[in-house]
């Protein structure tokens, strides 16, 4: 186990180095950050000042060398736009994204698995067909369109929920969390549903497929033949066996929900990392983009590690 973790760590460092180089080269090729930073009315002197102050007058490899040097001592650089350490700017927005992702995944799992189970056990029923048809919609409707529809129906027409923004926050475990507060939860509900919809559909379909596959297998027949209660057959034997692929997918999706909630965040004006990074890409705020992607990559690797460890818990054969 220890070897696995150590090997993972070494791989992580390599991946992080490659990522930073790719982003560096990528942004360098897109354009000149000075053009996006200065006031359009700026004169030659001001443009030159920014170029020199941010080290953008140096060749790319010198800039990258400086970045690596600082990064090794834990400094990912100052954001061009905010003038503060890029990592601070990102971490400041992280709780908003994490809570939205958590809420979305809870919605997706709590609703998705039971619906998937049902659809798998009674595949020919009318309700099961309804569920499956719904999941196709959840898959195929574009996130931004659903987001606007949610706003139009629940905020504009019915007036039940606020249209955009994040509610008041309470401090918990040193983080500012809004969903522990009723008003905050109300603000988070629409974006979380919007974000959850795709994952929900995915989990429904995956669960159903797993159930359909497993009910045919010998162990299920055997459990039934043994005269176990249906509740136990499904709740223990079946559920435990379909969990491994589900946990893998849920883990990966959690990563993507955290890293790529960009569309939802921008429609709902949710002050999270996704919106920050989109603005940063637009403004060519390279330190923020690099730091964000490094964090994202690290997060994915971490989640994968946790998923691997969970396998061992779920499946004795892996241990």
């Amino acid at each position, binding site marked *: 186990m220890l070897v696995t973790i150590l090997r993972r760590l070494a791989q992580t460092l390599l991946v992080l180095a490659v990522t930073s180089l790719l982003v560096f080269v990528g942004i360098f090729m897109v354009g000149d950050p000075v053009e996006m930073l200065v006031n359009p009315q*700026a004169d030659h002197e001001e443009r030159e000042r920014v170029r020199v102050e941010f080290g953008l007058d140096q060749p790319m490899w010198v800039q990258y060398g400086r970045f690596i040097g600082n990064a090794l001592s834990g400094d990912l650089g100052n954001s061009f736009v905010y003038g503060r350490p890029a990592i601070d700017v990102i971490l400041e927005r992280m709780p908003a994204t994490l809570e939205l992702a958590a809420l979305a995944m809870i919605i997706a799992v709590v609703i998705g698995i039971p619906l998937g189970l049902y659809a798998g056990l009674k595949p020919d029923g009318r309700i099961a067909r309804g569920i499956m048809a719904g999941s196709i919609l959840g898959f195929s409707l574009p996130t931004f369109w659903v987001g606007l529809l949610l706003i139009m129906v629940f905020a504009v027409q019915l007036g039940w929920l606020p249209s955009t923004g994040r509610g008041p926050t309470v401090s918990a475990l040193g983080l500012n969390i809004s969903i522990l507060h009723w008003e905050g939860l109300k603000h988070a509900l629409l974006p979380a549903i919007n974000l959850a919809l795709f994952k929900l559909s995915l989990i429904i379909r995956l669960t159903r497929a797993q159930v359909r596959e497993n009910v045919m297998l010998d162990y299920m027949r055997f459990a039934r033949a043994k005269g176990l209660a249906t509740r136990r057959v499904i709740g223990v034997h079946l559920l435990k066996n379909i969990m491994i692929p589900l946990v893998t997918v849920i883990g990966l999706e959690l990563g993507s929900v955290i890293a790529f909630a960009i569309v939802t965040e921008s429609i709902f004006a949710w002050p999270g990392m996704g919106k920050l990074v989109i603005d940063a890409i637009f403004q060519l705020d390279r330190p923020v983009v690099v730091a964000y992607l490094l964090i994202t990559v690290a997060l994915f690797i971490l989640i994968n590690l946790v998923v691997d460890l969970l396998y061992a818990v779920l499946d004795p054969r892996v241990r």
Partner: protein
Amino acid sequence: MNRRHLLCALAISGLLPLSAPVLAQAQPQELVIAIAAPISALDPHFHNLTPNNSITKHVFDNLIRTDATQQLLPGLAESWKPLDNTTWELKLRRGVKFHDGSAFTADDVIATFKRAPEVPNSPASFSQFTRPVTSITAPDPHTVIMKTAAPHPLLPRDLTSLQIISKNQVAARTDDFNSGKAMNGTGPYKLVEYKPGERVIFARNDAWWGGKTAWPRVQYRMISNNAARVAALLSGDVHVIENVPTADAERLKTNAQLALASATSNRVIYLHMDTGRDKNSPFVRTRDGKPMEANPLRDVRVRKAISKAIHRDAIVERVMEKQAIPAGQFLADVFFGTSKRLKPEAFDPEGAKKLLADAGYPNGFQLTLHAPNNRYVNDEKIAQAVAAFLTRVGIETKVDAMPSNIFFSRGSKAEFSFLLAGWASESGDTSSSLRSLTGTFDPKQGLGAANRGRFSDAGLDAMITTAITQVDDTKRGMLLAAASEKAMEMQAIIPLHYEVSVWGMRKGIGYTARADQYTFAHEFKPTR
């Protein structure tokens, strides 16, 4: 992405009648305003960009203010006058207090000039406004004498951009402003809370010298997505939004619970042509698509033909949904330094063809028009329309639209032959437009910083330099107008239209829409 969102909003709004939830209410204690762009800091000297300035000007005053059409008004300075060509005297307002209770004096002005150009890590500094001033002294606490190296009549305009901080904050860091600690101004509002990327909350400063403002509390929310901002207004979550998308303006106008305010902005959308290269302009091709040695864009007749070929009224009507005004110069003629004589070029395709023939291109040529696709209102669509008009008179034009971060990087390196861009004259006069867009590109002279067509004419340069050093206002206005006329005659740029800025608000709230696109809470008033 915005455009797609917009289309969707339209699609949805077609399905759902928009009426019910915008409730008429008694005047709220808090005015909630949705702004379109996030701000990068609360430090008034950190990032010289409109969204930042628009917010920080609630807390910090300027020596000189501007009205809705950017004419100068007294601010913290009650009067200003040149003593000679390079010396200015400003009389400061008496009895003004900072939010911490200390009195405003000339020392605060000196402190501001000291701090503003030297903010570390500033991505867009204010040094441009402080640089011309070589010395600044205070003979008494309410008089300031500023000396400049050369005659600098634009000083009062520069002062409208420089926000005055207290001398106690001269050493404050940007972080101190963001945390609220250093947010000590003389302005109409005090800072209550700032959440980056999310909201800014202000409380009224009852002691403001400008009088009592209407709302005791103001909340600014940052909602950059166009459709989401409109939805927030419709749902009643916010009372006011800025930058109403052109496609929604008509629809909001017919909503009985909403009102709109609009003003011709100081931004002109224009075309720039490569007049810098003698030959082999990169995106000019012959009629049959071969590289072309001669550069037809250097011929003023060709540029004039391009201008005549474009039906500006049609672009305004169809593409801009009437939220624009056809343009004939750098700024609409209510602004300083414009010419009453310059009118938008009339649509004349036959005249255009004739000019092309006279210039030796009876069969036209091929051209690529480069444009940003996420910077100005409907930028890519305008470019498409322009291309269609030009193709009709024989200049077969293709559009290549790209995100603005790529567009401006390439454009500023003069990589294009023909480009569409916008220019907001923040100073509210034509001096910056003439200097930056049409002056010869030359870092030494300080001209042409945004001259992406590399237009160059020694005569025009001389006119510009004379105009911007003429201290007498009336004379300078006339010189700037004359320079504008000359620039248009030579078609250094081709103006298309002035953008119209639109604010949407609940009925019962009134706003005098501003040309500089600032959304000032203290200028909103209840109308009943």
